[in-house]
């Protein structure tokens, strides 16, 4: 029992009270205003994990996204569609309360929110992943590793997923052989790998509610998450459509939140796009040098 007590992350009463009283005066303990987002940095794999890997830092929070692909048999009911699946990995290094191996309640929720935002809004074109109808399709797997928990894992993980999907390249494959039914997967040296077709970028923005729901802050830190009364994650895409909303407890002004979210989502999206562009540019430049 004692070991378990020693492993849980805990907060003093002083901290909780102070966070609440400071919020009454529109102050947050890290010096931000209620609707300020933390600094977001996106980095991409350089060496071995060349394509489809990204590292996102949102303040203290640190998430790594990693995309892989595999040729599989499609589902019976969708013979000409590839699949996209999201897996989360919560390392005990990120937070002592995360258990190794078994995914916790929050790990499942996080995976579901991101899954709903990306897959059910059809952001990734799955039909273009079909190689041979009914026989072979590409299955895209997104792994999200939580490396450090500083609060608001959902937004950080969502950005990591998007950034790694945007830079991911799958090997090109063609049909050949005697009967034209044999699939040939071309290595990247022979044929340039193909990017995924992504229709729009659903960006998640999380709000935390305090008190009677009249205090709303964006992008809560780990300490604020421990104190908050409720939380809402809105996932908005490029056109301003709401792709998903996840609201866990608490009362709050949803419409106002959505309006703020759409502004923040635009900011985040432009950050992702510029990071991806810079990465692509760098890759192109490196290619020139090699020859």
């Amino acid at each position, binding site marked *: 029992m*004692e070991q378990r007590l020693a492993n849980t992350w*805990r907060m003093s009463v*002083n*901290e*909780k009270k102070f966070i609440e009283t*400071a919020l009454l005066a529109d102050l947050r303990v*890290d*010096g931000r205003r209620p609707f300020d987002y933390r600094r977001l940095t996106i980095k991409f794999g350089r060496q071995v994990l060349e394509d489809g890997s990204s590292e996102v830092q949102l303040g203290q929070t640190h998430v790594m996204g990693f995309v892989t692909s595999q040729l599989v048999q499609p589902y019976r009911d969708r013979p000409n569609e590839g699949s996209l699946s999201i897996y989360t990995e919560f390392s005990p290094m990120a937070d002592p309360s995360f258990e190794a191996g078994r995914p916790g309640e929050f790990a499942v929720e996080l995976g579901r929110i991101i899954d709903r935002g990306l897959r059910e809004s059809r952001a990734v074109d799955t039909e273009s992943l079909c190689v041979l109808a009914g026989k072979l399709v590409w299955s895209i797997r997104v792994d999200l590793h939580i490396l450090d928990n500083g609060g608001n894992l959902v937004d950080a993980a969502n950005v990591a997923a998007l950034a790694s999907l945007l830079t991911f390249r799958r090997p090109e494959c063609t049909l050949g052989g005697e009967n034209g039914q044999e699939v040939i997967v071309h290595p990247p040296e022979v044929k340039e790998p193909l990017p995924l077709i992504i229709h729009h970028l659903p960006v998640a923005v999380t709000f935390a509610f305090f008190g009677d729901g009249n205090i709303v802050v964006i992008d809560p830190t780990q300490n604020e998450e421990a104190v908050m009364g409720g939380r809402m994650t809105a996932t908005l895409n490029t056109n301003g459509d709401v792709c998903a909303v996840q609201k866990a407890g608490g009362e709050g002004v949803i419409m106002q939140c959505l309006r703020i979210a759409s502004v923040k989502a635009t900011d985040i999206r432009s950050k992702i796009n510029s990071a991806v562009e810079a990465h692509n540019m760098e890759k192109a430049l490196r290619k020139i040098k090699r020859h």
Partner: protein
Amino acid sequence: MDERPLTSPTSFVDHIVVPGDVVLNLSSMANHTIKLGGGLRQDCDAISVMKAGKLRFSKPNKYWVESSQKRYVPCVEDTILGIVVDSKADNFLVDIKGPALAFLPVLAFEGGTRRNIPKFETGTLLYVRVVKANDGVNPELTCTDASGKAAEFGPLKEGYMFESSTGLSRMLLSSPTCPVLEALGKKLSFEIAVGLNGRVWVWADLSSVGRFSVNAASPSTVILVGNAIMSSESLSGVQQRIMVEKLLQRIQ
């Protein structure tokens, strides 16, 4: 550097050392008695390092490695900030960011008797002193100084507590006063309690708000002090003063 022990020509004192470094050779320093602290080990004649950090030397003969980490290794006579986790008949269980929970005997208070056992709810923040830190046993704390007086020890009410690394809290406690606290203290009045286990508590009263921030409520002072301290870890003395100046300008 007159601290440099005469017997060892290549002194590592006050330099960064990593595990495996041999910092002293005993064969060349016969007739010397030296005392080894944390992070050092003796293999025959060689004194080698076991953890990364700065090698420290205190006259006449003490050597140890000082590092900055998130986890606290209890050490006797350290003053630390603990959070009450549970209370038992004889002990309070206190989280000190260490490998094990610490015990605070219910009688370890000034004039403590079975009759007047204090009541602490879970999550109470305590300023305590480590009295026992042995391997394999939970460390023991007390809320009195060596002469049995309450001194400044005991529960901390209100205020705000934040976590730092052990290196940062050691820097805050160093003498002469570290530049960030000095610069802040010139303009603002606040109370601070620094635990060597990497916890810092700050409290500013509304009535004690300094001349330069008449309109500022106490939370803003506390937040400012907290953020100034947290961002000062990797800054030099001059940089710390500039950073504090900038922060103070912003709230004026």
